Every structure is written in C-alpha cells, then in structure tokens.
C-alpha cells in the first residue's frame, strides 16, 4: 500500500502532461502547388516542368507562361491545398462553387481565374488567381533605370518593376527577410531602397546598404543584411533554415548577353565583420555585380535553378561577367585589404564583358533553355552574412548588350 501511495504522487505530473486535448481544426488555407494537365505540354510550354508550379507562401497571383503563338483553351487543373481546407472557384459575378481537382479551367485569352481557399475551421481564407500568359518576345538589348517602384502590399518596403521576362516582372532582394527581423524598420530603413534624384543623371537610382539585422538577426546568427537586387524568386520561407537556397536565381532568356554596362558608386562601411559579428582586421568590404548565363535544364529534362550557394560556380554556367575581385587558387572569393573592383564614391560607368566557357546552342536558346541572372550586393559576402554594416552601393542605368 505504501509503495503504491508514493508511486501515485510521482505519477501526478505525468498525468497532467499527458492529457492532450482534441486537435483543433486547421487554420491555414494555402494553394501549395498548381499543375496543368496537357497531353502535349511542349506544344504550349517551353519546358515540360513548366506545367507544375510550386506556390510560395507569399504568392497569390499564379502565372504560367506559354509560347507566344500557343492557343490554350480549357485545361484540367489540379490544386494542392492545405489539408482540410476547401477551394472555391470564384466566377466573374463573384459567385463561388467548390472546385473539384482535375476539372477544366478556361485559360483562353489570358483569363484571370479566381479562387478562394477557406481553412478547415472556416475562420481564414485566401484569394488566389491563376493566369496563363503568352510569352512576350524580349529584345536583345536591355536598359534598366529603376525608375518604377512602389511599396509592397504590406507597406513595409519598396518593390521595383523589372523587364517583362523577369519571373513576375519585378526585381527581387532581401527586403522580405529583413522585414521578419526588423519589424520596426521604415521603408527607407531597408537594405534595398530607392534614392530619389541621386542617380548619375539626376534621376532616381537604387541604393543598396548593408544593414544590421538587430536582436532577431543575432538570435538567428544572421547579423547583417546586404542590400541586393536580382532577378528570380526569393522564397522567404527558407530565409532562416537555408538562406542561400531562399534565392532561386535567374529567368529564362532568349538572347546571348555579351556585355553589361552599369553606373556604380560605393561607400564602404568601416568594419568588416564575420558571421559571428567579430571584426576582421585587414579585410575591406567590397560590392558585387555579376551577370550569369546558364543552361536551365539537365540532360534528363530536370529544371536547373541556381541559388546563392552556386550562382557563380554551378557547372551549368556557360557565361559569366563580374566586377573584379581577388580569388583563391581554387577560384573561390578571397577576402583582402586591397580590393580591385575599382568602384569609388564617385559615379562611374563600368563595362563588364560576359566571358563564355561553353557554346550556346541557338535552338536551345530560342526555346528558353538558358537563363540570365543579374546579381548585385552592397557586401559581396552578404550571402554568408559577412560584410561591413553601412556599406552602400548606388546603382543605375544598366545596359545589357546581346549577340
């Protein structure tokens, strides 16, 4: 009796912790993936894999791009949504009816098809649109002046329009990640901001600044955020777990870039710090600018997308142009105290040739088998959270000349 009495006491805390209540219904309501089912996808799409689109959590306008001459009608469509949620097709007059996976959706004439996903607990919903657009032929010459920008829907940071062939027509940067760390930051406190009237011609330009990420950045051991501008996708979901992979770099492009001209001005931050925030003596921060041209499909037809970890080293790269830097014997970036990039605190136009290490196949080129990636940073090692807080790169009037 005595033993069981004692045992009863010892068991009390376990009883308390083991009384798990019934699970609540899901509150999330995302479209996670969209796939279009076509008998002959290559008649419409440049790549077979383009019929499947993974939707990132911040995305709500889902756009598929088809060949400019393709005529698409109704296509059976499958949506993968949050478990327990319900998806409704929303007609033009606003009426909703449950969407059954595999049913045909009319994508003719670039029609914007609206959907609403309602969570299992009915308390939350999200609106989506799915559109199939025709590819617009791009010119073999690009001119980018960063004059068109606006606040993102959250009103926290700026977004810039880019050329049409960019994934959703906008430039990407680390601002969405900075927002997670620094809730108090105003739009002009972000690493990538417009600089009004500060361009070499007196118009607006882009200001990239390496910023301290504050207490949450320290907690995540990501103490600084380099200002950046690139084309591709920034999936902020991975910003904490795998920041280099959060950047999916490049957009399919049908011209072979030969040379980039760009106006630059640089103010270097004073103290270069390593990932742990420790100052590194004898190392000066450097800006970075590069243009990468790469094959975006492997031999078996799988999609290749470069990310922050291999944007300058992936074997699928065929052409590369970059601001000059010191390199180690193995070709990796070498930190130094005598940078050779040549960018000063006065505006200068730089010419960066694209150097090819492999042939570009004209047929593959025409079928969007290559992607172009433009990258820029106020701290060239910012992807590894190293750099000098306060480094500023001003950038404007980019020209890309193609063959």
């Amino acid at each position, binding site marked *: 009796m*005595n033993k069981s*009495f*004692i045992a009863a*006491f*010892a068991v*009390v*805390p*376990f009883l*308390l*912790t*083991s*009384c*798990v*209540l*019934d*699970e*609540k219904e*899901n*509150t*999330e*309501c*995302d479209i996670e993936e969209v796939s279009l089912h076509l008998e002959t996808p290559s008649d419409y799409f440049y790549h077979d894999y383009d019929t499947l689109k993974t939707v990132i*959590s*911040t995305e709500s306008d889902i756009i598929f791009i088809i060949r400019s001459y393709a005529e698409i009608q109704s296509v059976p469509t499958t949506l993968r949504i949050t478990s327990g949620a319900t998806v409704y097709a929303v007609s033009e007059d606003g009426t909703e009816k449950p969407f059954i996976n595999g049913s045909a959706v009319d994508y003719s004439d670039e029609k914007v098809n609206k959907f609403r996903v309602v*969570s299992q607990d009915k308390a*939350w*919903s*999200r609106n989506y649109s799915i559109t199939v657009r025709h590819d617009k032929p791009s010119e073999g010459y690009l001119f980018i002046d960063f004059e068109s920008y606006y606040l993102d829907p959250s009103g926290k940071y700026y977004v810039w329009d880019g050329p049409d062939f960019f994934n959703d027509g906008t430039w990407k940067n680390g601002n*969405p990640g900075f927002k*997670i*760390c*620094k*809730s*108090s930051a105003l739009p002009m406190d972000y690493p990538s901001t417009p600089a009004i009237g500060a361009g070499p011609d007196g118009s607006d330009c882009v200001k990239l600044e390496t910023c301290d990420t*504050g*207490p*949450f950045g320290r*907690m*995540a051991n990501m103490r600084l955020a380099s200002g950046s501008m690139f084309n591709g996708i920034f999936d*902020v*979901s*991975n*910003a*904490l*777990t*795998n920041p280099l992979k959060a950047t999916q770099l490049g957009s399919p492009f049908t011209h072979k870039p030969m040379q980039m001209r760009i106006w630059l001005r640089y103010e270097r931050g004073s103290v270069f710090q390593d990932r742990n925030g420790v100052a590194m003596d004898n190392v000066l921060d450097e800006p970075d600018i590069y243009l990468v041209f790469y094959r975006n499909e492997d031999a078996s037809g799988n999609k290749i997308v470069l990310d922050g970890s291999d944007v300058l080293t992936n074997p699928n790269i065929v052409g590369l142009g970059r601001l000059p830097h010191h390199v180690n014997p193995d070709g990796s970036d070498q930190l130094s105290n005598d940078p050779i990039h040549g960018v000063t605190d006065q505006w200068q136009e730089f010419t960066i040739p694209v150097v090819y290490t492999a042939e570009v196949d004209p047929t593959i080129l025409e079928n969007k088998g290559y992607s172009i990636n433009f990258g820029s940073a106020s701290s060239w090692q910012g992807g590894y959270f190293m750099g000098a807080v306060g480094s500023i790169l001003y950038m404007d009037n980019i020209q890309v000349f193609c063959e």
Partner: protein
Amino acid sequence: MNNKVILILLLLLVPSSLLQAQSVPPTPDQKEELPLKGDGGSWQKWGPTTGLNGGGFIVRAGYVIGGTTPLPLPAEVRKINEFSPRGGISLGIDAYRMFNRRWGVSLGAHFFWEGFHTSADVKNYYVWLEQEGEVTKGYFTGTNVTNTEMWGVTLPLLATFRISPRWNVSFGPYMSYYFKQTFTGEVYDNSDGIGYLREDTPVGTKILMSREKPTSYPDDFADHMLPLNAGIEVGFDWKALRHMNVFGKLDWGMTNIWSSSFEAISFKMYPIYATIGVAYRY
C-alpha cells in the same frame, strides 16, 4: 495580480503558534487523559516525543519531480515527446505542534532545486517575441523544447491530521520564493519534418524552421518570471521508524509563473512538483 494573495499568505506564515511549537512538557491533566495500553499505547509510541499534543521538528530530504505547465494543457499542444526532470532536490525543516491527538499545525522551510526538460509537438501555437523594440509574432507548428530550473525556498503552513498512529496527512497553503530561475528552449521541425511560423496570422508568410538550425528562445525569458509563487500543498508522513518518516507531498502552484506584462507565452503556467523522501523526526 497576485500580490494580495502573496501578502495574505505571508501573514499566515507568521503564526504565534510557531513560537509555542517548542517542546512543552505535557501537563498532568493530559497524562491522565491518555490511556497507555491498547490503541492508545500505539498513538503514544508513534506520537510526538513530548506527548500527544506536543511539538517538534522534522528534517526532510526528498527527490522532486514535476513540471511547470499550463492548465489545462492547451489544445495547441499535440504530443509530449520527452519529459525529464532537472535538479530534483529538496531539503527542509518543519516545526509542528499537535493541538490534540488528531489535529496539528506545521510550518516549514524547504529549500529546493527543481525543474524539467520537455519536448512537445505543437500546432498553431501563438508566439509573440519582443527584443529591443522589435517584434516577431505568429503561429508556430512544429516541435517546442523547454527547459526550466528553479532554485528557491517553499514555506508551507499546513494543517496536519493524524489518521492513524503512524499516518499523518497535511494540507495547506504555501509560498515559494525563487533565488534563481532559468527558462530556455528552442523550436524546430517535428519528426515529420514539419516546422514553421506563420507570421502574424495563419495566412501570413510561412517561415520554415529546422533542427539543423533551431531557433532559441530569447535569453531574457527568465527575467519575466515572478520571484514569488503561491499554491496549495498536500502531503503525507508515514512513520517508518521511531524517528524516521517516509513522506510525500505535492505542491500545486496556483499563481502564474509569468509576469502579467509578459506576452511571449500566451497562457499562464503553473509549477506542479511532487516530492518523495525521508525525514528525521525530533
């Protein structure tokens, strides 16, 4: 919120009877009342050495096990993966005085080091973190690991009831004062690889978490823990030998461990710790 409760308990803990709990020789009257044979002999044999309505001291050493938990466990907690005690030592002394054969009162001071480690799977668990004016908030789904340790002293004021010559039970309020508290933890993905925060609302940006790069609680959580806690203690003593007791007790905290201004954890948490041990009875 609980300042009043704590004050009342403090007052309760300074009873005049304590001072009288020292050995008082039984009066001749009382001696006459007590039969020395049969059942009564047993009561006297196991009773206070100074007589059935005397007093004395009990020195206790025990093993503490328990947890600090929301009650009831919120529905956001889906599964307890791990639970293990941390520390688990209690050393204390009680002064007691019996008013008659059955009833008495006891006041103690028990020094403790207690705590636990737990890993729980949670779903849609609201978190609100503020650091130097920056706020991150939202709904977390994944695995949440918590470690807490507390060093302090508990002062119980108990009514004791002798249900048989060798069995005592006790019940009453207590107050704990913590010399030091720690509260650390981290969040990451669960065993199915699911771990993320939905920023602000369940439809907000999804930020993945992984066990390769766990996200730790901010360092200052323990700073938001209150130094005082009040609750109810129930216990028993079994007189195993003439001077040795085996005892068990449960301290059930009734006041939130968190300061009311602390918003990082959206529910109140209560310390609930049991002690088993042996005691020397003077």
